[in-house]
């Protein structure tokens, strides 16, 4: 270590505690010390990221506490990164009772091989541990992240757009167009789902708050309900409608594009935490509006 420091000084490299390009690192079990280059962040090679969803899985990012260096969360042969000590942990294949490493605990817990980066500030080796370290198996996930997964499970959608003007007909300027959606668990709710990992479960419940209908003529209708299905002879919707002032003849395809966006309120709880979030889902359709006055016969 002294020699390394000396060499670093001779090289006139500014000494700093974290690894910096130009730092001299003496690796255990070798006869040499190496001059480190710019940290590329993630070690390359096929040894990295194996095991499925490791490195970037579930949004986990693994960072060496002492240097800020971003490293893979899983390395084949060395196991999973632990935020506790910035070392990789893997259970030893041969869990045999002999050996002082057990510290008398056999057969409780397990012997782990701990592999530390040179800058982690700790040495590795074999050690006994009662339970896997935090982050082992990549199951480090927060209740909020699980809530998001629960939301995904619900498969919420935008409205199933229903209009009082059938797609093959023209509506009429000045006559209300009824707007509604088919009501189901995925289009209006309520909906509920539970996402879990070992030791943690989060249940989320979603309810639609409103649908904003962008009618394509520059105006929107906001309805805090799913709307009312049109019935023959109906004129004014009791809940949700739009009155066009101009025909759609000047529009592309001679139709107004209709975009309906449902806002969902989601509440969740689990793992001693709770919270809420908002998600939106959008559907599109179109409607044709003509100028000709039409007599409606009942």
């Amino acid at each position: 270590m002294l020699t390394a420091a000396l060499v670093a000084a001779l090289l006139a490299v500014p000494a700093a505690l974290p690894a910096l390009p130009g730092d001299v690192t003496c690796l255990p079990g070798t006869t040499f010390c190496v001059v480190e280059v710019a940290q590329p962040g993630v070690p390359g090679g096929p040894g990295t990221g194996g095991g499925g969803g490791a490195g970037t899985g579930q949004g986990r990012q693994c960072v060496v506490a002492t240097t800020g260096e971003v490293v893979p969360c899983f390395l084949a042969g060395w196991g999973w990164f632990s935020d506790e000590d910035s070392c990789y942990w893997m259970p030893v294949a041969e869990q045999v009772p002999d050996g002082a490493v057990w510290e008398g605990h056999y057969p409780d817990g397990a012997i782990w091989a701990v592999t530390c980066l040179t800058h982690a500030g700790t040495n590795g080796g074999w050690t006994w541990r009662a339970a896997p370290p935090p982050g082992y198996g990549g199951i480090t996930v927060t209740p909020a992240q699980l809530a998001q997964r629960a939301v995904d499970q619900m498969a919420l959608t935008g409205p199933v757009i229903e209009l009082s003007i059938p797609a093959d007909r023209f509506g009429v300027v000045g006559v209300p167009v009824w707007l509604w959606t088919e009501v189901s668990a995925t289009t209006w709710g309520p909906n509920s789902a539970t996402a879990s990992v070992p030791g943690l479960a989060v249940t989320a419940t979603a309810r639609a708050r409103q649908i904003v209908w962008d009618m394509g003529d520059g105006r929107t209708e906001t309805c805090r309900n799913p709307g009312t299905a049109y019935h023959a002879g109906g004129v004014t919707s009791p809940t949700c409608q739009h009155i066009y002032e101009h025909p759609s003849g000047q529009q592309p395809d001679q139709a107004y594009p209709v975009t309906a966006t449902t806002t969902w309120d989601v509440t969740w709880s689990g793992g001693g935490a709770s919270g809420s979030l908002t998600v939106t889902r959008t559907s599109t359709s179109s409607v044709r509006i003509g100028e000709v006055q039409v007599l409606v016969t009942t």
Partner: protein
Amino acid sequence: MRNRGKTPRAATAIVIAAALLTACTGPAPEPSPTEAMNGPTASATPTLTPSVDSAVAATEAAVLEAYRGYWAVKVRVYADPTQPVPPELEVYAIDTALTDVGTAQLTFQSNGIKVVGEPSLDPRVSGIVTGAETTATITDCVDGSSWTPVYVATGKSAAAPGMESRLTTTSTATYFVDRWTIQTSTVDREAPC
């Protein structure tokens, strides 16, 4: 140095095994009843000493085999640190001797370094201890002058200049499960040899 008063249990077992092996595989001349009765007591002193010596030698050979195997795997891993470690590593190494290889490999990976050539070894088993755990100590003067880290991209040396390349290395071996393994291996950078 060897200590004949503290023959390891493993060595004793080897002596017995060797004796049994000889008895089973030899031409098997019929021992007379007298020889069979008197043999162990009468001829113990003159015949046992070379057997113990050979048993110790066998133990030392097994320890050195693990030691050389450990170095050979290390040289292979560092020659291409991007490859996964071969399973032999866990045959030859446990504990910090094992995880130190990972520490070095990860550093080589993140710096784009590989290590070419190989070191020269001159190991000696300097002590065997029996007890709750059977261990041995290996002292070596590792010559790393032909074992050089280089940057893969440029082929230029990654070695910090001005370092001694012949260094005293002290390792401990442990009899683990069914074999000798290296448990620790420390290169003393302050002890050129």
